[in-house]
């Protein structure tokens, strides 16, 4: 009995070690291929540029002798949200760019073959790659968003509401696209894989804006279109949830931001998205297990 328990634990421990080894390999690839250096370098440039904007905005505030006020906070909030919106888009692009070579690329080049003959199921490859890519994206989106929020705080003293939750949701948004790309990569070529992911993002993006317009014009049809697209590809809905959390009540209630929504996504949408991502990983495992390499 003791032997059985020990063997079981050893198997689990070995399985976790395999997943971590594949995750580490994935992260190392992103690093060695200089994605991180270039993405973080240009990300830092984006944050610096944003900081220049905040600096001049703050100078303007000081020149006018205006102190902290609801209006000033709303103005800085709008500014921060504009910066974060750009970064959420960079996160989406990064998700697709790093996930396409990780699965479709490795399958096409047959570098996956020598990993797939190791003594574990292909689920290990999928979960390991997903974990590695998720870590990279969380770090990338987190660093960009933290930089934007941090530089705003340093120069103006303003911090948007619930920044940690908002940034976590932005990372989740990128992870949704990465997971879609990983699943597509188990069956599609590199180019088709990229086209699928960006095309689905486009659908979610347009659906999200139609829902937003429908909310303000009270068009049920447009809202329904938005709901359906957000269920199919929840990335845009997650951004809206992040934006709603980080915008001030005034900005949300007066709908003075382009990211204000009449009906913000609920917490259930976040749960749905987490389940959606898990389902994508399971589907990617199923697809890769049944594919001839």
């Amino acid at each position, binding site marked *: 009995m003791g032997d059985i328990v020990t063997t079981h634990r050893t198997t689990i421990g070995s399985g976790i070690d395999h997943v971590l*080894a594949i995750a580490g390999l994935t992260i190392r690839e992103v690093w060695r291929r200089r994605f991180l250096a270039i993405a973080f370098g240009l990300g830092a440039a984006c944050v610096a540029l944003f900081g220049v904007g905040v600096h001049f905005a703050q100078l303007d505030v000081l020149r006018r002798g205006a102190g902290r006020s609801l209006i000033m906070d709303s103005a800085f909030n709008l500014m921060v949200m504009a910066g974060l919106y750009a970064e959420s888009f960079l996160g989406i692009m990064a998700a697709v760019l790093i996930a396409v070579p990780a699965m479709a690329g490795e399958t096409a080049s047959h570098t996956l073959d020598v990993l797939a*003959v190791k003594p574990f199921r292909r689920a290990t490859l999928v979960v390991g790659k997903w974990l590695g890519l998720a870590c990279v994206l969380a770090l990338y989106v987190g660093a960009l968003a933290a930089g934007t929020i941090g530089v705003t705080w340093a120069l103006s003293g303003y911090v948007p509401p619930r920044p940690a939750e908002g940034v976590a949701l932005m990372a989740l948004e990128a992870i949704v696209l990465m997971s879609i790309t990983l699943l597509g990569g188990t069956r599609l070529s590199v180019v088709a894989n990229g086209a699928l992911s960006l095309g689905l993002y486009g659908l979610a993006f347009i659906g999200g804006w139609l829902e937003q317009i429908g909310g303000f014009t009270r068009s049920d049809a447009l809202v329904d279109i938005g709901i359906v697209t957000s269920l199919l590809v929840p990335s845009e809905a997650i951004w809206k949830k992040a934006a709603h959390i980080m915008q001030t009540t005034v900005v949300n209630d007066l709908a003075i931001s382009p990211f204000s929504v009449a009906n913000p996504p609920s917490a259930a949408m976040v749960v749905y998205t987490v389940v959606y991502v898990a389902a994508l990983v399971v589907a990617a495992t199923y697809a890769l297990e049944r594919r001839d*390499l």
Partner: protein
Amino acid sequence: MCQDLGSLAQENALTSPSPAIETFELAKSYGTKAAVRGLSLRVERSEVFGFLGPNGAGKTTTVKMLLGLVRPTSGDATVLGRPIASPSARAKVGYLPEHFRFHEWLRVDEFLDVHARLNDVSREMRSRRIPELLELVGLTAAARQQLGTYSKGMLQRAGLAQALVSDPDLVFLDEPTSGLDPMGRRLVRDVIHRLSERGVTVFLNSHLLSEVEVTCTRVGFITGGQMREVVPLASALNGLVRVTLRLGNVDDALRRGLARWGRLVEPGADPRLVVLDVPDEECLPEIARWLVGQGVALYGMAPQRLSLEDLFVSIVGSDRSWETS
């Protein structure tokens, strides 16, 4: 006594309760195209088995099925006693693919470390085994170079080290010498001999018949996705003789009669010549006596020792079905 080739193979086949590889009517189709058709094969432990056939015969597909990379359409197989669908079948298996592509951004020591870790080799064992393997394949000086900077031959050496990193009981080498210079080929040959001495089974896919001839204990010939013949190499080549008979009159009945001693080679332009591969020279007096007994005029009988290339052409060349499959 003159023996037939099939009985030679049976006589030399070792018996073991758990062979290194065993396939039962293994088949793989891609749509309507059959890549492997009902392949049955048994490779014993500690054998160095050469798997030979023309391009497109189904060699790589067979290896990929045995390694779990390709799912068979039908049939079954075991590797080291375990079903190929089970990942545990690959726990003590090494593989050097034909079209090897590795993560070129890794240094070779990192590359071997990752593969050893994925094969559950402990950290302590890895720190010992990796330098040994690098030494074995002659890459110690280039251990900290990225694979992307390697030549094709160096990559193949790195791939060979990777195939051995789990201390395997069975190694699949798919065209292991295709990118190597003569020194590299000798190295692969030495490695195969050392593996064989240690009781490791080697399954070798190669077009270089001279390499196969000096390394393999048995060879299997595959064409059109089917196993045509398996022969114990040393004994087959030691005795195998190609005899050219010059006769007065040759008809189909005579050719059928001669086929009892061996394999008839495709008839040439001269209708009076019959070429026959027989297992040993002892067959020649028997053939002569039989011909005389049949009343056939025998003008000449020219025996000649066969190389593996002759054997390959004889088996593969006589079977044209694969060309239209």
